């Protein structure tokens, strides 16, 4: 047995609290990041990702206290993203106890940031988050399988995805696959790949997108966006060939524990840490 595929719960935080509904049995104060992180850790989460969704720059420092609190009690890798603009932002998050920092919009605005942060702190702690949206044809969010080659030929083109920023609101015109290659070359240690077509749909990952990235890059790819059940997580690994899967709502709302997800994946022949 070798390297395990990773399961990564994602927590949206602002003002020192976890937002989005969280529904752990027996946990009254559901919004406390330390409590929630501990619970996921106990369930066997392989890493945790915190997304700072604070809109204004005023409350930015609160995420540092949150990470300090979690890092003092939870001893698995912690990734923090959201609003990271400068190497100084990276430094402060790492000093607060983050192990990796995820860079999204700022990488598009200033690709050199990825190179600088990676040169300074090592590529192991620089995650580039890519929000990708299909632009090749009318989006079919219900599709969970690969289109047959013949069908694709009928549509006239190979699939294409474009990078979006600002939480998926702004198109950049940048080809997502080319962007992934460039980020790897600049020193990204890992790619957090979110399908904007699938995010929030609970219809499963964009497996074609995931597989295209994973096959192209040498660095690990985390699949994100669209998980609605445990089979989706399995598909992300087996069909999408992701190295890790990130999910939020199916864990937050208590539908499944991380342990249940891992046990199911293990039964499907996927190597996981249990």
């Amino acid at each position, binding site marked *: *047995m*070798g*390297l*395990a*595929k*990773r399961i990564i719960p994602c927590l949206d935080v602002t003002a020192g609290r976890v937002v989005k509904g969280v529904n752990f049995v027996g946990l009254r104060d559901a919004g406390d990041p330390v409590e929630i992180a501990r619970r996921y*850790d106990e369930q066997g989460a*392989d890493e945790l990702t915190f997304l700072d969704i604070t809109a204004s720059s005023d409350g930015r420092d609160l995420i540092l206290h949150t990470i300090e609190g979690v*890092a*003092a*009690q939870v*001893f*698995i*890798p912690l990734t923090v993203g959201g609003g990271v603009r400068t190497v100084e932002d990276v430094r402060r998050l*790492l*000093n*607060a*106890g*983050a*192990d990796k920092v995820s860079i999204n919009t700022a990488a598009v605005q200033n690709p050199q940031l990825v190179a600088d942060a990676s040169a300074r*702190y*090592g*590529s*192991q*702690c620089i995650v580039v988050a890519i929000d990708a949206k299909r632009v090749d044809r009318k989006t079919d969010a219900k599709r969970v399988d690969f289109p047959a080659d013949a069908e694709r030929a009928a549509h006239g083109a190979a699939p294409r995805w474009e990078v979006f920023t600002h939480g998926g609101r702004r198109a950049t015109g940048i080809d997502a696959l080319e962007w992934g290659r460039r980020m790897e070359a600049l020193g990204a*240690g*890992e790619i957090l790949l979110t399908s904007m077509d699938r995010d929030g749909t609970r219809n499963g990952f964009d497996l074609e997108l995931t597989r295209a990235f994973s*096959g192209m*890059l*040498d*660095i*690990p*790819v985390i699949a994100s966006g669209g998980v609605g059940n445990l089979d989706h997580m399995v598909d992300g690994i087996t069909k999408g*060939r992701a*190295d*890790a899967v990130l999910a939020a709502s199916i864990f937050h709302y208590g539908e499944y524990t991380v342990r249940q997800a891992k046990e199911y994946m293990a039964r499907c022949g996927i190597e996981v*840490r249990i």
Partner: protein
Amino acid sequence: MTDIAVIDYGMGNLRSVSKAIEHVAPQLRVTVTSDPEVVSGAGRVVFPGQGAMPDCMREMDARGLRKAVVAAAREKPFLGICIGLQMLFDNSEEGDVAGLGLLPGKVRRFPHEAMVDARGEKLKVPHMGWNEVHQTMPHPLWEGIASGSRFYFVHSYFVEPANPQLIAGYSLYPFSFTCAVASGSIFAVQFHPEKSQAAGLRLLANFAAWQPAAAGMRVPADAMR
């Protein structure tokens, strides 16, 4: 006096390491330091490292830490982590840089052509995530940790000791590589015990309590009482 010095030469995040040790050994004073005198005066030393080994060697020397690191590795309980393991060896393929030469052997990159699993799928580099660590010798730092327990890794290079007797543990990716070495008062690991949940915390607790008394090594002062 510092009980445990975590050597800081400006490469990466040492907070995780010190926090994890404080968590398992709250009675000990843990100091993150780049001061050679603090390292020399400490009862135990942790030697971490992240990033590229040439940068780590350069930054260590820029802070005048080399002598203190070498002396600590010879004299007192010494835990190398990640690049802190790799730097103990003779040299590395990464930037073709010389290491400290405390242990014989070299540091190699995962060779591109070998990175395919049993199903023919490409394996990613860096080797990132939780892998099984198979223990090849009994050691006080393995106490209470089952062989095959998973630890968290993130690295693109691995050590190849010239002397197989140094090997304390190995992992598979896809071939067997050395992920832990032991020699006298030195124990060093490729994985990150500070990020490896229960198994990692146990290893750190074992280190905090370890009393090595290897032949040819000076017995640490706190073991002579």
